[in-house]
């Protein structure tokens, strides 16, 4: 039986998120290797730029529309997606591993009695079968899995797959109005952390650890982050001390991140912290202890006092930005 790939596009406030483009490009690559069709689905109300996903390799988008679907509703979204997958005979479903994707994918797997591989960092084809690689034990080990179910679902870790353009073409959009979406579970309010970039989505993260010595000194972290257009992160030690909110915690019991650049300031590099950030493309560490484990995974390090090094970094970056 031939394959058919379905990609879930995630929109927030009507904008298609970058992680979705990564999923589209990945589906495009798979569909050429498996010689099969691929299409996308998006759920929401007013959505901008749906056509532009054509540039990333998918030519057909089904848009399920309703004014109550602009925000996420687990019950409504999972029903729509599962029914659409059934109707169209999708055999491979690709979902970004975002907070929405993580909530939705297992629901779809249960509804469709499908195998599921979460948080994949690569999808390879071996003997016309997909072999997915996913980090387990907080990234201490990588596990290759195959799914033996009729429908196979994969979620992709954001920032790992590249969202490269494959050409210039507009996707065809088919919008349908949804009658009576199932809003038995629904988001009634979104509380934004003020104007701040989230570590889970940032290209650059500047994180501080216990070496920062106090909550006030995080001004320095924030300033550096702001200069770089980065999110500020934290180790668990400083979250437990109440210096920073839990939403900033990176690590095994915090967030898993893979930014292009991760700057660790006064963080020792405990195994649970590394678990959350070791897949970052470049890691910079500043620590006064030359034996701190963080240096074992850092691409660039300065063995020195953050209170001298960080102000110098701020000055130097101002120079190159001006």
């Amino acid at each position, binding site marked *: 039986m031939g394959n058919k790939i379905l990609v879930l596009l995630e929109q927030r406030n009507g904008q298609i998120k970058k992680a979705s483009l990564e999923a589209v490009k990945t589906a495009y690559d798979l569909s050429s290797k498996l010689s099969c069709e691929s299409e996308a689905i998006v759920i929401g109300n007013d959505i901008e730029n749906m056509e532009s996903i054509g540039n990333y390799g998918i030519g057909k988008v089904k848009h399920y529309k309703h004014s109550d679907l602009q925000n*996420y509703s*687990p019950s409504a979204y*999972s029903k729509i997606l599962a029914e659409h997958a059934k109707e169209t005979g999708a055999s491979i479903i690709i979902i970004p591993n975002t*907070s929405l994707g993580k*909530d939705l*994918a*297992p*629901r779809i797997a*249960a*509804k469709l*009695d*499908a*195998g*599921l*591989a*979460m*948080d994949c960092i690569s999808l390879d084809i071996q003997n016309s079968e997909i*072999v997915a690689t996913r*980090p*387990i*034990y*907080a990234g*201490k*080990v990588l*596990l*290759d*899995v*195959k*799914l033996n179910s009729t429908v196979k679902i994969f979620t992709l870790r954001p920032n790992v797959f590249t969202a490269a353009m494959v050409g210039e073409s507009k996707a065809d959009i088919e919008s349908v109005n949804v009658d009576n979406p199932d809003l*038995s*579970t629904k*988001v*009634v*309010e*979104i*509380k934004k*952390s003020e104007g701040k*970039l989230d570590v*889970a*989505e940032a290209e650059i993260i500047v994180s501080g650890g216990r070496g920062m010595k106090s909550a006030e000194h995080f001004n320095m972290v924030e300033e550096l982050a702001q200069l770089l257009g980065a999110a500020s992160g934290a180790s668990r030690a400083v979250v437990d001390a109440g210096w920073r909110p*839990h939403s900033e915690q990176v690590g*095994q*019991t915090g967030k898993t991140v893979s930014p292009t*650049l991760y700057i660790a300031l006064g963080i020792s590099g405990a195994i*649970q912290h590394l678990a959350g950030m070791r897949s970052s*493309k*470049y890691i910079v*560490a500043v620590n006064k202890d030359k034996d701190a484990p963080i*240096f074992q995974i850092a691409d*660039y*390090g*300065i063995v*020195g*006092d953050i209170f001298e*090094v960080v*102000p110098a*970094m701020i000055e*130097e*970056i101002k120079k*190159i930005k001006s």
Partner: protein
Amino acid sequence: MKIAVCVSHVPDTAAKINIAGDGKGIDQTGVTYVVNPYDEFAIEETLKTKEKLGGETVAISLGGEANKETLRKALAMGIDSAVLLKDESYRDSLSVAKALAEEIKTQNAELVFFGKQSVDFDNSVVGQMTAELLGYNCISVVVDFKLEGNKVIAEREIEGGKEVVETLLPAIITAQKGLNEPRYASLKGIMSAKKKVIEEKPAAAATNFVDAVTMKRPAPKQAGKIVGTDATAVPELIRLLHEEAKVI
């Protein structure tokens, strides 16, 4: 009301994980197991809810004999009773969820707490799957939970903020750090947990869809460059980031 909590038994997060000879599992030597950290938040919320509204609590774990340790810990913290769904073999998440769903039905629990994620295979899915199988409502990654009559109001963490989500019982909630501060087991709790009987039954059979092919170590990062030992190294560091790595 019957409130259930599902708990998994996982290697300590500080454990060194080595791959076993067959490449399909981990080498168990020297690995200590603990209650899954997120499940401690789930247990605490179960206890708090009972303290507020009354009812009866039960902890459920699927796995081998060793999972009894984790169930004992739940009992020591104050959970009323415990069930071990026994299966020593590998199961994928959906087949775990199927067996848990059966047991939750048997227990007739209207509210069930899960952790948001087991820190072994890091799937973060069993709660949502179980809810779908039971036809229960579900809110995942919850940092704030309220029950008003039949209505559940919870806050879940998302990128850049929180979503306030409403639904009705019966429901499954998956707990994220920040939901509460798990209590320590009291000496009395530990003593009485020792006397309690953990009910054992075979886990309902289900097919695995996920085949583990092989485990491997992540490619080691090559040793990085120590650019310098004080602030005078900063211009060189920034130059490297700008010109070599091209990340700023």
